[in-house]
């Protein structure tokens, strides 16, 4: 490889691609070639760097200058100025809210500097399509160490002592899972990676698969050695085509380098991995449903026990872990259980990757030590509200989780503390909501999702969630009664207690948690027929402020149902019986004269 003067790491995560990374990269390549720099400047497309709201982004080394919100034009300028003349291009640097610009944002910005990266240690730093870059960052060293220096029992023991818990949601101790599968009787055993990430608002697994696929392969091979399996499956959603592509490349490379296949590193251990692609069913993230889907059946869960550790794929003992859990394994093997335990809290050691989404300034992925408070996570790292309005609540754990109101933001984030608040850690999605969001509407939204995704096998989930949704529909359309609230609670608890799998058992959580903290909002809908957040269409009226309206007729012209009348240069009025509350008039009014009210 020729010596290079500069290396450009450009983020090729899904979010940056969607905001135009490809055309930026092409412009860079063209311009670099034009000036004959292609011998000395290297462009590397990495996985997701995490700062999705700033994309497309790139970092130029050795200076470590972080450029954001790139366009092809910006790329041209950066080549001409930065690479040719050594002058930093100011307008694409990160700007603090104070106006100060920070060239080395990766080291100095709180969003990056406060993170501790274990599972995502390579994501954004290496070319995911190149196994040698992974190896250069200690890749496959853990597998080598396990095979050469440790017995399978020692590997299991190390993971057990590390206290690593399942990052997919439930937080089951990983080492214990491995131990149970190791001890289970069976001549064939399997390792399965659950990459069917489906929780709305969670995208850390996607980022690891796209940005560091080898870490998953390495960890699966270590798990295979530990439990005595020769075959692994990665079950990926069909909605993640890029992740599938990068995994396929990685598997082929690992085979070529002898990290997968027969007699790995000249040991007696042989291990292969195949990809299985889902076909659009959220319930397949549940482990028994996922196994059914791997076997080519409808993805429906079954009663546990027996657990997959006893009877999994093809009825054989199987270890199932999710992507982020696997990604923590190689560092634990290399650095040891004590090191891992020194990070996080005693009951939840290590780090957790969170996906910040919704009304928050810095959307994207962050990996932080367990036990960090919600306030630190949402304000110091997340940068607070993106709308200028107060953050009202954060929803954690997707459709299985709950809403946590702002009063509780000093709570440390770990499995137990979140559960006490009626929410769950889940897979780490954090959806931030402000005062414009109606909590009844949010609860209804999640229930629509569950009703849609319920596989239909057990009655409480299939019929119960449907009944709950009907009641919520009634409430948001202004026809709810106080008895409905009690009925919601009663039904919710029954569904929790009697559903077959995790999907049904947690489906009522969004409703129950909002009822617990925002009962007053439900009561406003029911008793006063009022939606405090002005979200529920049936409870909202549109009015024109006669002191602001200048009679420009813009609203009347844009109204799709002709609900607005008035003469030119005279105050207009809205007929609320005709109005469909589409909001077009508010958007088009330049005088701020139209507003929503709820009685």
């Amino acid at each position, binding site marked *: 490889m020729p010596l290079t003067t500069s290396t450009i790491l450009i983020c090729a995560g899904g*979010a940056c691609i*969607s905001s135009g990374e490809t055309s930026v990269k092409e412009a860079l390549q063209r311009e670099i070639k034009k000036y004959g720099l292609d011998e000395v400047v290297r462009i590397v497309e990495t996985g997701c760097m995490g700062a999705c709201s700033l994309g497309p982004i790139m970092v130029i080394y050795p200076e470590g200058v972080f450029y954001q919100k790139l366009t092809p034009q910006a790329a041209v300028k950066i080549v001409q100025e930065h690479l040719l003349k050594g002058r930093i291009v100011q307008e694409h640097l990160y700007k603090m809210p104070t106006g100060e610009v920070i060239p080395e944002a990766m080291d100095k910005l709180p969003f990056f500097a406060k993170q501790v990266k274990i599972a995502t240690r390579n994501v954004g730093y290496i070319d995911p399509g190149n196994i040698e870059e992974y190896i250069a960052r200690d890749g496959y060293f853990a597998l080598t160490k396990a095979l050469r220096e440790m017995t399978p029992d020692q590997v299991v023991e190390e993971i057990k002592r590390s206290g690593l818990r399942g990052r997919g949601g439930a937080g089951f101790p990983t080492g214990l899972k491995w131990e149970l599968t190791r001890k289970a009787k069976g001549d064939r055993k399997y390792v399965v990676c659950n990459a069917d990430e*489906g929780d*709305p*608002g969670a995208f850390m697994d996607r980022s690891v698969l796209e940005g560091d696929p080898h870490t998953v392969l390495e960890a699966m091979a270590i798990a295979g050695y530990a439990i005595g399996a020769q075959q692994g499956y990665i079950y990926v959603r069909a*909605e993640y085509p890029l992740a599938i592509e990068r995994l396929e490349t990685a598997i082929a490379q690992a085979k070529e380098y002898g990290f997968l296949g027969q007699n790995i590193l000249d040991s007696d251990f042989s291990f292969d991995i*195949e990809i299985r692609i889902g076909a659009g*069913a959220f319930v397949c993230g549940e482990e028994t449903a996922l196994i059914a889907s791997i076997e080519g059946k409808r993805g429906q869960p079954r009663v546990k026990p027996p657990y997959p550790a006893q009877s999994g794929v093809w009825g054989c003992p199987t270890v199932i872990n999710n992507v982020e859990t696997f990604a923590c394994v190689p560092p634990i093997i290399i650095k040891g259980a004590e090191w891992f335990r020194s990070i996080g809290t005693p009951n939840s050691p290590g780090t957790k990757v969170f996906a910040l989404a919704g009304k928050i300034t810095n959307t994207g992925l962050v990996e932080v030590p367990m036990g960090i408070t919600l306030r630190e996570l949402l304000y110091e790292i997340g940068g607070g509200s993106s709308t200028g309005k107060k953050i009202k609540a954060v929803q954690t754990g997707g459709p299985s989780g709950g809403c946590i109101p702002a009063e509780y933001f000093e709570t440390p984030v770990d499995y137990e503390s979140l559960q006490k608040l009626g929410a769950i850690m889940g897979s780490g999605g954090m959806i931030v909501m402000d005062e414009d969001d109606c909590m009844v509407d949010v609860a209804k939204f999640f229930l629509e999702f569950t009703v849609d995704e319920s596989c239909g096998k057990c009655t409480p989930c299939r019929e119960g969630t449907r009944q709950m949704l009907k009641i919520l529909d009634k409430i948001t359309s202004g026809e709810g009664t106080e008895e409905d609230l009690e009925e919601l609670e009663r039904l919710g608890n029954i569904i929790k207690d009697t559903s077959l799998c995790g999907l049904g058992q947690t489906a009522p959580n969004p409703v129950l948690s909002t009822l617990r903290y925002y009962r007053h909002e439900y009561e406003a809908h029911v008793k006063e027929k009022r939606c405090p957040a002005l979200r529920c269409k049936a409870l909202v009226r549109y009015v024109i402020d006669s002191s602001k309206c200048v009679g420009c007729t813009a609203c009347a012209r844009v109204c799709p149902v002709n609900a607005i009348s008035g003469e030119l240069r005279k105050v207009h009025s809205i007929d609320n019986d005709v109005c469909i509350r589409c909001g077009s008039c508010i958007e088009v009014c330049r005088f701020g004269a139209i507003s929503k009210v709820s009685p």
Partner: protein
Amino acid sequence: MVDREAVAELVRNIKKQALEERDMLINALHQIQNHFGNYIPVEAAKVVAEELEVPESKVYEVLTFYTMFSTKPRGKYIIRVCVNLPCHVTGGRQIVETLKKTLGIDFDQTTKDGLFTLERTSCLGLCGVAPVIMVNDEYYGDLTPKKVKEIIENLRARGDAR
């Protein structure tokens, strides 16, 4: 007419590659769906049943369980709109309305010219740039009603329907 031999050949190829014999059904259906563009004709599904020696009812139950499979022909561009909370709270509702209005169709329908099918999808994992849609294998993020209209216009200009 479905070319039965071509379908059978596809399935036989998959059989040759697979390590396990029993888990090929979903993989086979994916490949057949790609073969026909973006749907699985019932007759092709019957061939799959014959080749894999499983009852037709089993193929049908799997085929209809997963939302990504369709037994009806779909448009050249399948637009999947994320209808989950992160997209909802950042303006997803207007995106859905704009798509329906611009295309003149509801969910799970196809435009008369055969260009577009509108579908709902669960989270695409691009919440950092919500609201998001996926058109075939491509993602579009940070959407506004205006951007959505432009995307549709570009796609219309790009290709005639089959």
